[in-house]
């Protein structure tokens, strides 16, 4: 008989004097991410909360120190997190063409012991979930990346990664929307625009959306 599913204990940590990090878990997991997005939405409605940003399995909460404290908010977060999250709608599906000729492809192939063509093939297999939009404008953290492609981030981040670079790190993949610093391994590039500065919200992806990559000719 399966053990009854216990409610995860939410751990909170201070992020300075007016924000905290509420951790629901430490896995790349759709159910945890759905709960994080629902918790952020519930927290945003509170008067003592200025901003709530869902991460993979966490929520970063900016609060008004004149209206609440770290301890009081932690209690409120634990209560909210114990509630069953609402059923989530399937996110929009984006199909993204990728030329798999990134500057790190050879190095990644060598470390993983796989031919580049196989890396591209494995990368295009899943329908990824957009776990969160953040880091830089329009960036979506997509996952889970198949285990065969799992690598730690680069030791020293690059100071400039070209816009449109398709990258992997750990169990995640993503596309650099702008030329920015970055610590992920670059395996390809796409011409799809992810940052739409004249729209609001100014990005193609939203947390909960789905993404399918396909190989495109150079």
């Amino acid at each position, binding site marked *: 008989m399966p053990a009854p599913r216990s409610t995860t204990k939410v751990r909170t940590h201070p992020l300075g004097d007016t924000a905290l990090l509420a951790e629901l878990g430490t896995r790349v997991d759709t159910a945890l991410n759905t709960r994080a997005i629902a918790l952020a939405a519930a927290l945003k409605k509170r008067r003592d909360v200025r901003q709530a940003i869902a991460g993979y399995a966490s929520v970063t909460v900016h609060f008004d120190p004149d209206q609440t404290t770290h301890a009081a908010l932690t209690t409120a977060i634990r209560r909210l997190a114990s509630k069953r999250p609402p059923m989530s709608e399937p996110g929009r599906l984006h199909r993204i063409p990728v030329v798999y000729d990134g500057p790190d492809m050879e190095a990644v192939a060598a470390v993983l012991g796989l031919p580049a063509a196989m890396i591209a093939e494995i990368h295009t297999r899943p329908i990824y979930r957009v776990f969160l939009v953040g880091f830089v404008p329009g960036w979506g953290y997509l996952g889970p990346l198949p285990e065969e492609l799992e690598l730690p981030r680069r*030791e020293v981040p690059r100071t400039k990664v070209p816009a449109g670079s398709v990258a992997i790190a750990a169990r995640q993949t993503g596309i650099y929307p702008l030329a920015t610093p970055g610590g992920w391994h670059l395996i390809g590039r796409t011409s799809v625009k992810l940052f739409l500065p004249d729209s609001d919200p100014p990005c193609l992806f939203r947390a909960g959306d789905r993404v399918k990559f396909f190989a495109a000719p150079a």
Partner: protein
Amino acid sequence: MLRVRKPGLLTTVQDLGRPNAMSAGVPPGGAMDRFAHSAANLLAGNEEGAATLECTVSGPALVALQPCLVAITGADFDPLVNGRPAPMWTSVILGPDDQLSFAGRRSGARAYIAVAGGIAGDRWLGSFSTNLLAQRGGFHGRPLIAGDLIAVASRPARRAPGASQSAPAISRQLNRDLRPAYADHMLPAIAGPHITRLPAESRKALFGSAYTVGRDADRMGYRLEGHSLDASGDELLSFGLVAGALQVPRSGQPILLMADHQTAGGYPVVATLAGAAMPIAAQLLPGDELSFVEVSIEAALRMRAAQRAALDSLKAD
């Protein structure tokens, strides 16, 4: 209206930022030194959120085309009106054709210029702040250049002290003891979510040893150089970041996140500056030394309240 005769090294329009855009990955932005920004606005009779000019390392030369009330705060770039020393942290009236310029940097990194009525600019995602990466907001999403005409957003929201037509021009000032202690680079910080990753020796180095601001220091953040911190452990899942967070990448050299910080990341955060320390951090330049002093949340909130009271003193009539 003001005409830009010389732009200075990097002068941008800033306000209190766009926190609501963080969920789209857009940096919150806004003035690096919020205290100086807010004080300048209050001295000019504006709301704290009005747009100001953030002047980096060197100041601009501006010519007033109409009379206006201005206030200069933050870094000391030796401000001059028509070549004569002008006071900082004080409301100053410029007559037609008066020129505000700066002789040169004496201390700090960022000076703020507020104009009664607020600086007019492009609003992007709810804020006038210039985002240089996205090239949006503020003055057409870019730093000022010579020849630009800066408009005033509106008539002053509050009656500026000394600005009324009938009363004589009595300027208002923020007392020296109410200004941030910019020369004190011992920055109060609160232990962060991943502090327990640090071995005792690294933790001791974090709260005690001196760090130097590296060459890579801008509105996004400062790479620091000093004692290497070992925050190794399992790869973290990316989470929402805040200004003031001290990230430790695998190199072990910490990065202090500033106003245009990335909104999410997966490097361990071992400490976060007290909010009250951010104005001091905003005035640091490459080569400057700093250190971190561990404080409790309560102590940090007391410092925050003291800064709040200093700003509120400018609201009293």
